[in-house]
């Protein structure tokens, strides 16, 4: 039995609400369904859609944040991804980039490979981020809280983590129909 069973919001619903609050910020989106859903909900040249290198979304975003200190950088990540690249929580916490917002959609499963459980049901990732040195950390379930906290984080100096508890529902989405090389080129041009 999952501790937070009954969570109503899907990742796509949460993501759509967040994308409405974003304009031209670079957004790094982790591999698997999150990238495909973001592509379907609102495709923007400032989106970097990942198809491989699981666990590396936050490190890519950190590289952007360090190289572009005047741009706010957002990561759309998942619980499986954060667990795989856990060391990056420490690197972000130590370097403390003010322009870094880490959104973690936490459904407690590896959704893309068939909903095998992760261990985020017992390991609170936002507390690990806080312990590592993230400045602002929030855990939300409801849509109103999600919008309130994200709006707040956009105004604050980071690094920040917004952990969003979501259900396992997945949108009916295809693959990202842009060639990876073109994703790179388009993203580079858009964040110049």
């Amino acid at each position, binding site marked *: 039995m999952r501790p937070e069973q009954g969570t109503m919001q899907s990742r796509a619903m949460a993501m759509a609400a967040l994308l409405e609050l974003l304009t031209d910020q670079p957004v*790094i989106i982790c591999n698997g369904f999150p990238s495909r859903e973001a592509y379907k909900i609102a495709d923007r040249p400032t989106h*970097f859609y*990942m*198809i*491989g*290198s*699981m*666990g*590396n979304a936050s*490190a*890519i*975003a*950190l*590289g*952007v*944040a*360090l*190289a*572009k200190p005047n741009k706010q950088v957002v990561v759309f990540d998942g619980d499986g991804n954060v667990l795989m*690249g856990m*060391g*990056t929580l*420490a*690197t972000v916490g130590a*370097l403390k980039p003010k322009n870094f917002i880490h959104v973690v959609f936490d459904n407690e499963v590896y959704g893309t490979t068939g909903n095998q459980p992760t261990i985020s049901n017992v390991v609170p990732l936002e507390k690990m981020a806080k312990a590592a040195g993230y400045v602002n950390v929030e855990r939300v379930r409801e849509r109103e809280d999600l919008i309130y906290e994200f709006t707040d984080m956009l105004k604050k100096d980071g690094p920040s983590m917004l952990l969003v508890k979501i259900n396992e529902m997945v949108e009916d989405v295809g693959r990202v129909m842009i060639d*990876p*090389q073109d*994703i*790179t080129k388009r*993203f*580079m041009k858009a*964040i*110049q």
Partner: protein
Amino acid sequence: MIESDAFVQALQDIGVDFFTGVPDSILGGIIAELMERRLYTPAVREDEAVAMAAGAYMSGKVPAVLMQNSGLGTSLNTLISLNMIYCQPCILIVSWRGYQGKDAPEHLVMGEVMPQFLDTVKIPHRTLSEKTAIDDLKWLAETFMKQRIPVALLMTKGVVRGLHP
């Protein structure tokens, strides 16, 4: 022997302006010099360093990642499913532990197979020597610009001055 500050300066001269990585004793002098110049962002794993470098590249930087050759194993998936697929180049400065079978046991297997390993995953590589250093760095920069994939400069012990003699 090449001095660490001359080597770092040479990298800066070919345009490298973002340095990250995970230390090795052979790279100790270079990392100390980079830290003194406030150019070095330490990573906790080599795949993280490679991904950070990719983010920096997309933001207009020319990145280099320093690592021990054991880190090639750790970062392999990032190199092939991020850099190769997305055409994101980076310069890999890789210390060649286990070179000619003379090292601690944990380095011997990678030390022996590293060139073939890099050939297999199609990462161009050269081994730095004092005699050919200028040419080696020129080749690094050209390969980075032309091929837009990771390119490796391998470094055996004693070619660039380390922290310990």
